């Protein structure tokens, strides 16, 4: 539900940026005010959310154990999926964050003629990995606009991303991530539309970031390959932001401002949305603690004493019956 609402919202944002820059000419708003505001919201909002989570303690150590546990016996422990040490947890989290290990486990259940079949299903994992890594590479590539001199790492990433040396419609070189992120986004969006289960659980806030990022990628792709923009002028703008000496070069058109505005929206929206899973994945207590409960006591800061029945009360109630049955008692 809500796919239309999300799409309209993003189209509205695009229109807003277009009217704001091409018609009204509030370039300063879109070039300076929104980006700064979005960045500040993003950083402060992100920290606020994480700190808020951090203020809630982890009262119990409840890892989801996904392999043989550690014990003093000879059975081989699965040190990554059921870690018993800090190092194991670091490894588990590493694979969780960088390889989406849990998602890699994904299966698909199907009912056929009254029987259940469960098969491996890695498409979601592949789509998620493709999307997140493409986004990361694109994000890092953009650092060339935000650093006075492009660091060699960024240049290296860029040359990897364009190693195919393919030109589409002339120049410049095609980035692989442009293709992969579009494919991944369309897959992620497509499954929300086609898979009845996913469609049923989807909220407007699930479609919105997809459309928003699609908008960002599309405007970026258009600028790079189709309607060329003056990159030097754009860098003057972006570098101006970084140097806190904002400038608004004249040579920049609305397409760029739409792109920049959608990115600003993404940053500003981030801390208030499900996108915070980026921070939350690190804080999930079913993954980020060691399964060493029987070895090492976990302390709950708010644990309080509870009323429970003591043996004395119990014996008082059943003493006669116990004595009759020959069960030893404390008080004769």
């Amino acid at each position, binding site marked *: 539900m809500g796919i239309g609402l999300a799409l309209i919202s993003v189209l509205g944002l695009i229109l807003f940026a277009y009217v704001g820059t091409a018609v009204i000419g509030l370039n300063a708003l879109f070039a300076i005010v929104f980006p700064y505001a979005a960045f500040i919201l993003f950083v402060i909002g992100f920290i606020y*959310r994480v700190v808020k*989570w951090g203020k*809630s*303690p*982890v009262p*119990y150590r*409840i890892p*989801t*154990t*996904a*392999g*043989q546990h550690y*014990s*003093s*016996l000879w*059975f081989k422990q699965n040190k990554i999926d*059921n870690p*018993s040490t800090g190092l194991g947890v670091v490894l588990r989290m590493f694979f969780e964050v960088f390889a*989406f290990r849990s*998602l890699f*486990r*994904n*299966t698909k*259940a199907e009912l056929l003629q*009254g029987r*259940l079949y*469960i*098969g491996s299903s890695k498409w979601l994992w592949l789509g*998620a990995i493709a999307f997140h890594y493409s986004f990361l590479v694109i994000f890092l590539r953009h650092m060339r606009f935000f650093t006075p001199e492009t660091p060699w790492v960024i240049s290296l990433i860029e040359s990897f991303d364009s190693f195919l040396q393919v030109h589409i419609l002339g120049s410049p070189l095609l980035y692989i991530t442009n293709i992969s992120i579009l494919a991944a986004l369309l897959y992620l969006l497509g499954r929300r539309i086609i898979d*009845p*289960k*996913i*469609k049923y*659980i989807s*909220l*407007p806030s699930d479609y919105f970031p997809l459309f928003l990022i699609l908008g960002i990628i599309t405007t970026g792709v258009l600028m790079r390959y189709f309607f060329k923009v003056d990159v030097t002028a754009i860098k003057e703008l972006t570098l101006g932001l970084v140097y806190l000496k904002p400038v608004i070069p004249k040579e920049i058109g609305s397409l760029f401002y739409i792109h920049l505005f959608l990115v600003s929206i993404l940053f500003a929206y981030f801390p208030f*949305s*499900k996108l915070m*899973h980026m921070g939350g*994945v690190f*804080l*999930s*207590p*079913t993954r980020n603690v060691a*399964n060493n*409960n*029987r*070895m090492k*006591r*976990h302390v*709950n800061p708010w644990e309080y004493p*509870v009323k*429970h029945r003591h*043996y004395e009360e119990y014996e008082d109630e*059943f003493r006669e*019956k*116990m004595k009759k049955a020959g*069960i*030893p008692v*404390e008080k004769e």
Partner: protein
Amino acid sequence: MRLPRPEELISDVNLNKMPSRRWMDTLPVEFKPGFYCYGAKGKNLEYVGFPNARDFHVTDEDWKLPEDWKKIVIEGIKQRIERFRTFHVFMDICVRCGACADKCHFFIGTADPKNMPVLRAELLRSVYRKYFTSGGKIFGKNGGARELDLDILKELWYYFYQCTECRRCSLFCPYGIDTAEITIIGRELLNLLGLNTDWISGPVANCYRTGNHLGIEPHTMKSTLEFMCNDIEDITGIRIEPPINKKGAEILFVTPSGDLFADPGIYNCMGYMMLFHELGLDYTWSTFASEGGNFGFFTSLEMAKRLHSKIYEEAKRLKVKWILGGECGHMWRVWHQYHDTWYGPIDFLEEPVSPITGTKFEHAKSTKIVHISEFTADLIRHGVLKFDKRRNDNLIVTFHDSCNVSRGMGMFEEPRYIIRNVCNHFYDMPDETIREQTFCCGSGSGLNAGEIMEQRMRGGFPRANAVRYVHEKFGVNMLANICAIDRAALPPLMQYWVPAVRVSGVTELVANAMIMKGEKEREMNLRMEPLPGKEE
């Protein structure tokens, strides 16, 4: 209420067809017979001091709630958000990727979309959004937020008592969102209003008074154990005197009371006593700590703590050195992941050491509790026990991993090692249905009541389907497990789906094959059925 025949039960289940109405617009929830447990009785709630104690009938329009019930729930959510990082993070970060959707046995068996773990959580998450997030406050329904009302409360009740807290969804979630945790907290909230089930609140009250869910009083427990010993004598010719409330014993043995009551649990209980006798173990039963299971865990963590505390107290009173735990699922979840935090530090006991083999159970050095399967596997490894595996030759065995021991602890190899050493025929079910990916019996977390049978048979279907597979492929006829709820819940499940397969605890298999010193030539197994080759 009669169940449809097995081939009809899930014939209408289509996992790819969702209702036409949005899930937020499907209220009020329809309480379908066979899908919900009866409400709690006032006297049981009152006995343990639960709020709003009164007889509660689920299908009544009026749930007799306190006037400020809404405030109680919202305050309850707030308190738990501040207390549990799990709950706090899980309410915030779900991206609704749907990886969990077809992992839930109840969803697979019913195709009810609100049985998808994501939607089960979303039922509560929507309320959380309305009262605790800016997005929910501003955008309302479009922001995925709902204002709490009686229909929503009823919906929460219906679906949180349709979750067995098995954590299978949590395994597949990219962020480890654990529906069990959400259900636990959801049920805590419901219990603030006295909204419990009869099947859970009854055992809780029993357990508080007598020490065990079944309400077995001390003298009855003793005679029950003695009856079992009579049977053991008939089978082996050996007379066992079970030590009860014996001060100064080395080990306190605690098992779920289900093992004292009905078959096949009682055979497992006989097995424990035979094993300990054969070893000459210095142990004791406790009539008060006569329950390892903890139905309090299915109401609130506080109640779980109130019921479980007696175990360490009894260990202290009886001056034992350490505790040995029997075969049970959620009992081990509670012991492993909660009990030490509640009651520790356990400095009045000693680090467990097997008195027979000398093995130090260092991995239990803080809690001082050892699992019977760990204990037995160690014995077998050291060659302490002698077996005649042929006694189990009529059994073609498979092993059901219990959810709690699997995903809340990670014990997979010990029971398999034991079974392979006492049985000649063992076949595992397909990988996607065992170990960490195991399917629930469909009746965990206090759902093994008779009135919810249809939901149980549907929820147990994925498990039964895997059993049927090995039954057809390898002729499997015995479903072994290490959980008392399994021993209670799997027999009707098998009876329904795969009638040729019976259910057994692992220790029963051990005791059946174990050659005891001074035993007569055995003719019968622990179920008093002729042993293979001894049939008339």
